[in-house]
Protein backbone atom coordinates (compact mmCIF):
# COMPACT_ATOMS: atom_id res chain seq x y z
CA UNK A 1 0.00 0.00 0.00
CA UNK A 2 2.78 2.39 0.99
CA UNK A 3 4.27 1.90 -2.45
CA UNK A 4 1.19 3.36 -4.12
CA UNK A 5 0.37 5.98 -1.50
CA UNK A 6 2.35 8.86 -3.08
CA UNK A 7 0.71 8.23 -6.44
CA UNK A 8 -2.75 8.15 -4.84
CA UNK A 9 -2.05 11.47 -3.14
CA UNK A 10 -0.81 13.01 -6.41
CA UNK A 11 -3.85 11.79 -8.38
CA UNK A 12 -6.20 13.10 -5.68
CA UNK A 13 -4.63 16.57 -5.81
CA UNK A 14 -4.76 16.53 -9.61
CA UNK A 15 -8.46 15.63 -9.58
CA UNK A 16 -9.30 18.38 -7.07
CA UNK A 17 -7.27 21.06 -8.92
CA UNK A 18 -8.37 20.21 -12.46
CA UNK A 19 -11.93 19.47 -11.30
CA UNK A 20 -12.33 22.86 -9.65
CA UNK A 21 -11.05 24.68 -12.77
CA UNK A 22 -13.43 22.75 -15.04
CA UNK A 23 -16.39 23.15 -12.67
CA UNK A 24 -15.99 26.91 -12.27
CA UNK A 25 -15.41 27.51 -15.98
CA UNK A 26 -18.48 25.45 -16.92
CA UNK A 27 -20.57 27.22 -14.33
CA UNK A 28 -19.47 30.58 -15.67
CA UNK A 29 -20.28 29.59 -19.26
CA UNK A 30 -23.80 28.61 -18.24
CA UNK A 31 -24.59 32.11 -17.11
CA UNK A 32 -22.88 34.89 -18.98
CA UNK A 33 -25.02 37.22 -16.98
CA UNK A 34 -24.79 36.68 -13.29
CA UNK A 35 -27.48 37.39 -10.79
CA UNK A 36 -26.44 40.15 -8.50
CA UNK A 37 -27.19 40.69 -4.92
CA UNK A 38 -30.89 41.14 -4.30
CA UNK A 39 -30.18 44.70 -3.22
CA UNK A 40 -28.97 45.65 -6.68
CA UNK A 41 -31.71 47.44 -8.45
CA UNK A 42 -31.74 49.29 -11.72
CA UNK A 43 -33.83 52.08 -10.43
CA UNK A 44 -33.21 55.70 -9.97
CA UNK A 45 -32.77 55.48 -6.22
CA UNK A 46 -30.46 58.03 -4.68
CA UNK A 47 -31.13 60.67 -7.34
CA UNK A 48 -29.07 58.82 -9.94
CA UNK A 49 -28.27 60.40 -13.27
CA UNK A 50 -30.51 58.99 -15.94
CA UNK A 51 -30.85 59.64 -19.63
CA UNK A 52 -33.33 58.08 -21.98
CA UNK A 53 -37.08 57.51 -21.66
CA UNK A 54 -38.29 56.56 -18.18
CA UNK A 55 -40.43 53.73 -19.57
CA UNK A 56 -37.66 52.20 -21.71
CA UNK A 57 -37.83 48.38 -21.59
CA UNK A 58 -34.10 48.05 -20.89
CA UNK A 59 -32.09 49.91 -18.28
CA UNK A 60 -28.33 49.98 -18.60
CA UNK A 61 -26.73 51.01 -15.35
CA UNK A 62 -23.05 51.82 -15.28
CA UNK A 63 -20.79 52.04 -12.28
CA UNK A 64 -17.95 54.13 -13.60
CA UNK A 65 -14.77 55.87 -12.61
CA UNK A 66 -13.90 58.96 -14.66
CA UNK A 67 -10.18 58.24 -14.44
CA UNK A 68 -10.31 54.54 -15.34
CA UNK A 69 -8.99 53.94 -18.87
CA UNK A 70 -11.39 51.05 -19.68
CA UNK A 71 -14.31 53.34 -18.70
CA UNK A 72 -12.90 55.98 -21.03
CA UNK A 73 -12.70 53.46 -23.86
CA UNK A 74 -16.22 52.26 -23.17
CA UNK A 75 -17.66 55.78 -23.22
CA UNK A 76 -17.84 56.29 -27.05
CA UNK A 77 -19.09 52.71 -27.46
CA UNK A 78 -21.90 53.33 -25.03
CA UNK A 79 -22.83 56.45 -26.99
CA UNK A 80 -23.07 54.36 -30.16
CA UNK A 81 -25.21 51.78 -28.38
CA UNK A 82 -27.50 54.53 -27.13
CA UNK A 83 -27.98 55.77 -30.70
CA UNK A 84 -28.56 52.25 -32.02
CA UNK A 85 -31.25 51.35 -29.53
CA UNK A 86 -32.88 54.77 -29.34
CA UNK A 87 -35.79 54.89 -26.94
CA UNK A 88 -35.54 51.20 -26.09
CA UNK A 89 -32.87 51.85 -23.48
CA UNK A 90 -32.17 54.25 -20.72
CA UNK A 91 -28.77 54.82 -19.19
CA UNK A 92 -28.01 55.35 -15.52
CA UNK A 93 -24.58 56.45 -14.41
CA UNK A 94 -23.36 55.88 -10.89
CA UNK A 95 -20.02 56.97 -9.49
CA UNK A 96 -17.60 54.31 -8.40
CA UNK A 97 -14.23 56.05 -8.13
CA UNK A 98 -11.50 53.57 -7.30
CA UNK A 99 -9.48 56.02 -5.28
CA UNK A 100 -6.75 53.52 -4.41
CA UNK A 101 -5.75 53.35 -8.06
CA UNK A 102 -6.89 56.67 -9.48
CA UNK A 103 -5.96 59.69 -7.40
CA UNK A 104 -8.18 62.14 -9.31
CA UNK A 105 -11.19 59.83 -9.65
CA UNK A 106 -12.95 61.25 -6.60
CA UNK A 107 -12.50 64.92 -7.47
CA UNK A 108 -13.60 64.16 -11.05
CA UNK A 109 -16.78 62.49 -9.77
CA UNK A 110 -17.36 65.51 -7.52
CA UNK A 111 -16.82 67.86 -10.48
CA UNK A 112 -19.52 66.00 -12.42
CA UNK A 113 -21.87 66.20 -9.44
CA UNK A 114 -21.10 69.91 -9.03
CA UNK A 115 -22.00 70.47 -12.69
CA UNK A 116 -25.14 68.42 -12.04
CA UNK A 117 -26.21 70.95 -9.40
CA UNK A 118 -26.40 73.45 -12.27
CA UNK A 119 -28.20 71.01 -14.55
CA UNK A 120 -25.18 70.03 -16.64
CA UNK A 121 -24.28 66.63 -15.21
CA UNK A 122 -24.17 64.70 -18.48
CA UNK A 123 -22.36 67.48 -20.28
CA UNK A 124 -19.59 67.39 -17.67
CA UNK A 125 -19.67 63.58 -17.68
CA UNK A 126 -18.99 63.65 -21.42
CA UNK A 127 -16.25 66.26 -21.14
CA UNK A 128 -14.47 64.28 -18.41
CA UNK A 129 -14.42 61.13 -20.51
CA UNK A 130 -13.58 62.88 -23.76
CA UNK A 131 -10.60 64.64 -22.18
CA UNK A 132 -9.65 61.90 -19.73
CA UNK A 133 -6.13 61.58 -21.06
CA UNK A 134 -5.43 65.29 -20.60
CA UNK A 135 -6.57 65.85 -17.02
CA UNK A 136 -5.72 62.40 -15.70
CA UNK A 137 -2.06 62.86 -16.55
CA UNK A 138 -1.78 66.39 -15.22
CA UNK A 139 -0.45 67.29 -11.78
CA UNK A 140 -3.62 69.08 -10.79
CA UNK A 141 -6.86 68.50 -12.68
CA UNK A 142 -8.64 71.38 -10.94
CA UNK A 143 -7.91 74.05 -13.60
CA UNK A 144 -8.99 71.64 -16.37
CA UNK A 145 -12.30 70.97 -14.61
CA UNK A 146 -12.88 74.69 -14.15
CA UNK A 147 -12.08 75.11 -17.86
CA UNK A 148 -14.76 72.56 -18.79
CA UNK A 149 -17.21 74.30 -16.46
CA UNK A 150 -16.46 77.57 -18.24
CA UNK A 151 -17.08 75.94 -21.64
CA UNK A 152 -20.41 74.65 -20.34
CA UNK A 153 -21.35 78.12 -19.19
CA UNK A 154 -21.56 77.25 -15.50
CA UNK A 155 -21.35 79.68 -12.63
CA UNK A 156 -17.67 79.07 -11.89
CA UNK A 157 -17.69 80.30 -8.33
CA UNK A 158 -20.57 78.00 -7.42
CA UNK A 159 -19.03 75.13 -9.38
CA UNK A 160 -15.71 75.40 -7.52
CA UNK A 161 -17.51 75.61 -4.19
CA UNK A 162 -19.75 72.65 -4.97
CA UNK A 163 -16.90 70.54 -6.33
CA UNK A 164 -15.09 70.84 -3.01
CA UNK A 165 -18.26 70.73 -0.94
CA UNK A 166 -19.77 68.07 1.24
CA UNK A 167 -22.91 67.64 -0.84
CA UNK A 168 -21.06 66.41 -3.94
CA UNK A 169 -18.91 64.09 -1.83
CA UNK A 170 -21.97 62.66 -0.14
CA UNK A 171 -23.64 62.01 -3.52
CA UNK A 172 -20.57 60.13 -4.74
CA UNK A 173 -20.31 58.12 -1.55
CA UNK A 174 -23.98 57.21 -1.78
CA UNK A 175 -23.34 55.75 -5.24
CA UNK A 176 -20.30 53.88 -3.98
CA UNK A 177 -22.26 52.37 -1.11
CA UNK A 178 -24.90 51.24 -3.56
CA UNK A 179 -22.20 49.71 -5.75
CA UNK A 180 -20.58 47.91 -2.86
CA UNK A 181 -23.95 46.48 -1.90
CA UNK A 182 -24.47 45.27 -5.47
CA UNK A 183 -21.06 43.59 -5.43
CA UNK A 184 -19.31 46.02 -7.76
CA UNK A 185 -15.54 45.83 -7.39
CA UNK A 186 -14.22 46.92 -10.75
CA UNK A 187 -15.02 49.60 -13.29
CA UNK A 188 -16.80 49.83 -15.58
CA UNK A 189 -19.45 47.49 -14.22
CA UNK A 190 -22.72 47.31 -16.10
CA UNK A 191 -26.08 46.11 -14.90
CA UNK A 192 -28.66 45.41 -17.54
CA UNK A 193 -32.12 45.36 -16.02
CA UNK A 194 -30.51 44.71 -12.66
CA UNK A 195 -28.35 41.82 -13.82
CA UNK A 196 -24.64 42.37 -13.65
CA UNK A 197 -22.52 41.75 -16.69
CA UNK A 198 -19.56 39.53 -16.00
CA UNK A 199 -16.17 41.06 -16.69
CA UNK A 200 -15.66 39.02 -19.88
CA UNK A 201 -19.02 40.27 -21.16
CA UNK A 202 -18.14 43.87 -20.33
CA UNK A 203 -17.53 44.91 -23.91
CA UNK A 204 -19.66 46.67 -26.55
CA UNK A 205 -20.65 43.27 -27.98
CA UNK A 206 -21.38 41.84 -24.54
CA UNK A 207 -23.53 44.84 -23.72
CA UNK A 208 -25.44 44.54 -27.00
CA UNK A 209 -26.03 40.83 -26.38
CA UNK A 210 -27.33 41.53 -22.88
CA UNK A 211 -29.62 44.32 -24.15
CA UNK A 212 -30.95 42.04 -26.92
CA UNK A 213 -31.63 39.27 -24.40
CA UNK A 214 -33.53 41.67 -22.18
CA UNK A 215 -35.50 43.07 -25.13
CA UNK A 216 -36.52 39.52 -26.11
CA UNK A 217 -37.48 38.67 -22.55
CA UNK A 218 -39.59 41.79 -22.25
CA UNK A 219 -41.44 41.33 -25.53
Amino acid sequence: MKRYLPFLIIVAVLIVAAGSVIWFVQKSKQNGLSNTNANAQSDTAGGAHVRGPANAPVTVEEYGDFQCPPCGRMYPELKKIEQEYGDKIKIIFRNFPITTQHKFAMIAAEAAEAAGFQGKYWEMHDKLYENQQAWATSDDPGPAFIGYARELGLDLERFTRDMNGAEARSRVEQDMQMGNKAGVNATPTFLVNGRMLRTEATSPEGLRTAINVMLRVNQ
Partner: protein
Amino acid sequence: MEATRETIRSERKAQEVETERRARGAWLFYLAALVSLAGLTDAVYLTIGHLTGANFRCTITSGCNEVLGSPYASIGGVPLASLGALAYFSVFSLATLAAFNHKWATLALKMVAGLMLLVTLWLLYLQAFVIHHYCQYCLFSAAMVLTLNLIIFVAPVLIKKGQYRLR
Protein backbone atom coordinates in the same frame (compact mmCIF):
# COMPACT_ATOMS: atom_id res chain seq x y z
CA MET B 1 33.88 -16.54 7.90
CA GLU B 2 33.73 -14.39 10.98
CA ALA B 3 35.19 -11.49 9.03
CA THR B 4 32.48 -11.80 6.31
CA ARG B 5 29.73 -11.81 8.94
CA GLU B 6 31.27 -8.74 10.51
CA THR B 7 31.31 -6.99 7.11
CA ILE B 8 27.65 -7.83 6.45
CA ARG B 9 26.71 -6.59 9.92
CA SER B 10 28.54 -3.32 9.45
CA GLU B 11 26.98 -2.84 6.02
CA ARG B 12 23.52 -3.40 7.47
CA LYS B 13 24.30 -0.97 10.26
CA ALA B 14 25.43 1.60 7.71
CA GLN B 15 22.25 1.03 5.71
CA GLU B 16 20.11 1.51 8.80
CA VAL B 17 21.91 4.73 9.66
CA GLU B 18 21.44 5.95 6.08
CA THR B 19 17.73 4.99 6.07
CA GLU B 20 17.16 6.78 9.36
CA ARG B 21 19.00 9.83 8.13
CA ARG B 22 16.82 9.88 5.01
CA ALA B 23 13.65 9.40 7.06
CA ARG B 24 14.64 12.36 9.20
CA GLY B 25 15.29 14.46 6.08
CA ALA B 26 11.91 13.53 4.54
CA TRP B 27 10.11 16.22 6.57
CA LEU B 28 11.64 18.86 4.35
CA PHE B 29 9.96 17.23 1.37
CA TYR B 30 6.62 17.11 3.19
CA LEU B 31 7.07 20.79 3.98
CA ALA B 32 7.88 21.52 0.32
CA ALA B 33 4.76 19.59 -0.76
CA LEU B 34 2.65 21.62 1.67
CA VAL B 35 4.04 24.95 0.45
CA SER B 36 3.51 23.92 -3.18
CA LEU B 37 -0.12 23.09 -2.33
CA ALA B 38 -0.58 26.68 -1.12
CA GLY B 39 0.97 27.92 -4.37
CA LEU B 40 -1.19 25.54 -6.39
CA THR B 41 -4.35 26.87 -4.72
CA ASP B 42 -3.32 30.44 -5.54
CA ALA B 43 -2.51 29.56 -9.18
CA VAL B 44 -5.75 27.59 -9.63
CA TYR B 45 -7.71 30.56 -8.25
CA LEU B 46 -6.02 32.91 -10.71
CA THR B 47 -6.54 30.47 -13.59
CA ILE B 48 -10.25 30.22 -12.82
CA GLY B 49 -10.41 34.02 -12.59
CA HIS B 50 -8.62 34.39 -15.93
CA LEU B 51 -10.86 31.88 -17.71
CA THR B 52 -14.14 33.12 -16.27
CA GLY B 53 -13.21 36.80 -16.30
CA ALA B 54 -14.16 37.16 -12.65
CA ASN B 55 -13.28 40.31 -10.78
CA PHE B 56 -10.36 40.14 -8.42
CA ARG B 57 -10.71 41.97 -5.19
CA CYS B 58 -7.29 43.33 -4.43
CA THR B 59 -7.39 43.89 -0.67
CA ILE B 60 -3.74 44.49 0.16
CA THR B 61 -2.07 45.92 -2.92
CA SER B 62 -3.83 48.02 -5.54
CA GLY B 63 -2.70 46.78 -8.93
CA CYS B 64 -4.49 43.47 -9.46
CA ASN B 65 -6.45 44.62 -12.49
CA GLU B 66 -3.39 46.23 -14.07
CA VAL B 67 -1.20 43.16 -13.54
CA LEU B 68 -3.75 40.44 -14.28
CA GLY B 69 -5.14 42.40 -17.21
CA SER B 70 -1.71 43.13 -18.71
CA PRO B 71 -0.45 41.43 -21.88
CA TYR B 72 2.02 39.51 -19.69
CA ALA B 73 -0.82 37.62 -17.97
CA SER B 74 -1.02 35.15 -20.83
CA ILE B 75 1.37 33.63 -23.31
CA GLY B 76 -0.15 32.91 -26.69
CA GLY B 77 -3.64 32.80 -25.21
CA VAL B 78 -2.59 30.45 -22.40
CA PRO B 79 -3.06 32.03 -18.98
CA LEU B 80 0.27 32.36 -17.18
CA ALA B 81 -1.51 31.29 -13.99
CA SER B 82 -2.30 27.90 -15.53
CA LEU B 83 1.40 27.36 -16.28
CA GLY B 84 2.08 28.29 -12.67
CA ALA B 85 -0.51 25.74 -11.53
CA LEU B 86 1.23 23.12 -13.66
CA ALA B 87 4.60 24.00 -12.14
CA TYR B 88 3.25 23.88 -8.58
CA PHE B 89 1.59 20.55 -9.31
CA SER B 90 4.93 19.20 -10.59
CA VAL B 91 6.69 20.39 -7.44
CA PHE B 92 3.98 18.84 -5.28
CA SER B 93 4.24 15.51 -7.11
CA LEU B 94 8.04 15.43 -7.06
CA ALA B 95 8.25 16.44 -3.39
CA THR B 96 5.71 13.75 -2.47
CA LEU B 97 7.62 11.13 -4.44
CA ALA B 98 10.91 12.26 -2.94
CA ALA B 99 9.42 12.04 0.55
CA PHE B 100 8.49 8.45 -0.25
CA ASN B 101 12.07 7.62 -1.16
CA HIS B 102 12.01 8.00 -4.94
CA LYS B 103 15.56 9.23 -5.37
CA TRP B 104 15.23 10.46 -8.95
CA ALA B 105 12.51 12.89 -7.90
CA THR B 106 14.95 14.98 -5.84
CA LEU B 107 16.99 16.12 -8.81
CA ALA B 108 13.87 16.86 -10.87
CA LEU B 109 12.43 18.78 -7.89
CA LYS B 110 15.54 20.93 -7.66
CA MET B 111 15.43 21.65 -11.38
CA VAL B 112 11.74 22.63 -11.44
CA ALA B 113 12.06 24.76 -8.29
CA GLY B 114 15.13 26.51 -9.69
CA LEU B 115 13.36 27.23 -12.95
CA MET B 116 10.33 28.58 -11.07
CA LEU B 117 12.61 30.92 -9.14
CA LEU B 118 14.02 32.34 -12.37
CA VAL B 119 10.52 32.87 -13.83
CA THR B 120 9.37 34.43 -10.56
CA LEU B 121 12.26 36.91 -10.58
CA TRP B 122 11.34 37.88 -14.15
CA LEU B 123 7.68 38.37 -13.16
CA LEU B 124 8.67 40.48 -10.16
CA TYR B 125 10.82 42.61 -12.47
CA LEU B 126 7.82 43.05 -14.81
CA GLN B 127 5.56 44.12 -11.95
CA ALA B 128 8.11 46.56 -10.53
CA PHE B 129 9.58 48.15 -13.64
CA VAL B 130 7.24 47.53 -16.57
CA ILE B 131 3.67 47.37 -15.27
CA HIS B 132 4.44 49.53 -12.20
CA HIS B 133 1.76 47.76 -10.18
CA TYR B 134 1.80 44.83 -7.81
CA CYS B 135 -0.83 42.12 -7.53
CA GLN B 136 -1.12 40.45 -4.15
CA TYR B 137 -1.83 37.01 -5.61
CA CYS B 138 1.32 37.20 -7.71
CA LEU B 139 3.35 38.38 -4.71
CA PHE B 140 1.96 35.47 -2.68
CA SER B 141 3.06 33.09 -5.42
CA ALA B 142 6.51 34.69 -5.46
CA ALA B 143 6.73 34.18 -1.69
CA MET B 144 5.80 30.52 -2.10
CA VAL B 145 8.45 29.96 -4.78
CA LEU B 146 11.05 31.66 -2.63
CA THR B 147 10.06 29.52 0.37
CA LEU B 148 10.23 26.37 -1.75
CA ASN B 149 13.73 27.25 -2.88
CA LEU B 150 14.79 27.98 0.69
CA ILE B 151 13.44 24.60 1.77
CA ILE B 152 15.02 22.72 -1.09
CA PHE B 153 18.38 24.45 -1.44
CA VAL B 154 19.15 26.43 1.71
CA ALA B 155 17.55 24.51 4.60
CA PRO B 156 19.60 21.35 4.10
CA VAL B 157 22.80 23.39 4.21
CA LEU B 158 21.76 25.29 7.31
CA ILE B 159 20.64 22.22 9.16
CA LYS B 160 23.54 20.40 10.72
CA LYS B 161 25.60 18.75 8.04
CA GLY B 162 24.64 15.12 7.44
CA GLN B 163 21.90 15.04 10.02
CA TYR B 164 18.91 16.06 7.93
CA ARG B 165 20.59 16.03 4.57
CA LEU B 166 18.29 15.93 1.56
CA ARG B 167 18.83 12.71 -0.30
